[in-house]
């Protein structure tokens, strides 16, 4: 698997898109820091960008890479390699190169700005950790979609829909449910609802870490009570890991049964 990972990774490292992605984050980091002149505000703005953009790039890139490397995959399938290592290697190659673009692109400007001397370093690390998790999750979901759809256009369509649903529509439905059932106690429901969407989960995690939960009112207090504790933090990370593991397991399972 490591060999496949190596080839996929270097293949992507040579592609223009990795640099574009890297340069984008580099630019974003620099602009935010020098316009804001305030590390913690920059972190909040970054969060808003990351929460939406990372899943989108992960999904699109994952689907695109899978369809584009069809020839490479077929070449590998005739070699004495396990199917699970071929697909996991490719998945990790994509996910890791995207994560690297993110971490280096955002990390470098912040390091030069003096991140290590500031106390926002933990907030910033949390941002990068959730960003990496989101990349892992959405690339895995994209691979699932691509594995199940031979038709590229359909695959891309489903991938965009998935992103749209989790990034935007889910929140809408969630909000409507809260409004509709406002007479009932909703603490548990909203907690669970947040847990079930990796984007919401990441956003809540970061917001509460940034200590601006006071802005969220009553719900914020409940959330703070839950996510603010180390128990809540651990549960949240377990949920994120589950969100990675389940799609990855399905990749392995689907790949074993597919015809090429």
């Amino acid at each position: 698997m490591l060999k496949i990972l190596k080839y996929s990774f270097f293949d992507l490292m040579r592609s223009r898109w990795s640099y574009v992605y890297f340069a984008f984050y580099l630019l974003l980091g620099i602009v935010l820091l020098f316009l804001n002149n305030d590390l913690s505000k920059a972190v909040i703005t970054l969060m808003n960008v990351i929460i939406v953009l990372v899943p989108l790039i992960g999904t699109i890139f994952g689907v695109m890479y899978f369809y584009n490397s069809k020839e490479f995959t077929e070449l590998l399938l005739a070699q004495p390699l396990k199917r699970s290592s071929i697909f996991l290697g490719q998945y990790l190659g994509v996910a890791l190169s995207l994560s690297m673009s993110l971490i280096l692109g955002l990390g470098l400007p912040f390091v030069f700005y003096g991140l290590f001397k500031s106390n926002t370093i933990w907030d910033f690390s949390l941002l990068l950790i959730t960003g990496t998790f989101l990349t892992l999750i959405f690339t895995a979901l994209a691979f699932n979609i691509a594995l199940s759809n031979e038709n590229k256009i359909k695959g891309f369509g489903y991938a965009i829909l998935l992103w749209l649903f989790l990034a935007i529509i889910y929140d809408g439905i969630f909000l409507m449910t809260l409004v509709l059932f406002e007479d009932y106690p909703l603490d548990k429901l909203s907690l669970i609802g947040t847990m079930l969407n990796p984007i919401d989960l990441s956003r809540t995690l970061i917001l509460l870490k940034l200590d601006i939960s006071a802005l969220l009112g009553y719900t914020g207090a409940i959330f703070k009570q839950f996510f603010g504790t180390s128990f809540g933090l651990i549960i949240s990370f377990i949920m994120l890991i589950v969100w990675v593991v389940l799609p990855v397991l399905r990749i392995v399972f689907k790949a074993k049964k597919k015809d090429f």
Partner: protein
Amino acid sequence: MVSIQNLYKKFGKNQVLSGVDLDINSGGIFAVLGPNGSGKTTLIKSVLGMVIPNKGEISVLGNNIKNSSNYRYKIDYLPQIANFPSNLKVKELVKMIKDLRGYTTEDLRLIELFKLEPFLNKKLGTLSGGTKQKVNLVLTFMFNSPLIILDEPTTGLDPISLIRLKDLIQVEKAKGKTILITSHIMSFVEEVSDEIVFLLEGKIYFKGTISELKTKTNQPDFEHAIASILTDNHA
């Protein structure tokens, strides 16, 4: 060498293989023939584990291939259409396959044989169909495996390369290897193969030598014998 029992494969509603039983002994050249869509490539891909059969068993060198991948060390496979990652250079591709499969020095000899030196630093996407096929041949023949599977090996080759390919096949046969070929070029099949397997509508219609086929169909030459099978079954 290869033993296939009761193999079934369906793609959607399209039943491609319906109960193939085939035993291929060690040594010699076997040609798998059949009209378009008769399941030749599916059969070969099933042996390679690229297509997962719905039913049936396949064993290669006495080992059941289900859920196994190491048996592919014993197989050299030439895919039908040479689709390679287009942003890789020829040199890098050869190096990668060697890295994945093991060490060999045969590649240098084969690159010289097919006169591929000028293309080593070119990207695969820029090569012509015939040159790609030559690269494909180098990748297939550079390992010394007991079973060689060639899916349409003659595609796009110029006459000189074709002669070299035939020589190469004969050299490998002399080493006692088993070679499985599919082709639509009947003269090529007649020239190289010891035995033929004729697939029709997902089943084995005929297995034997070419002279046996001629007697069976009462035809003086091989091409007409094949044609007569097809007309008798589609008329």
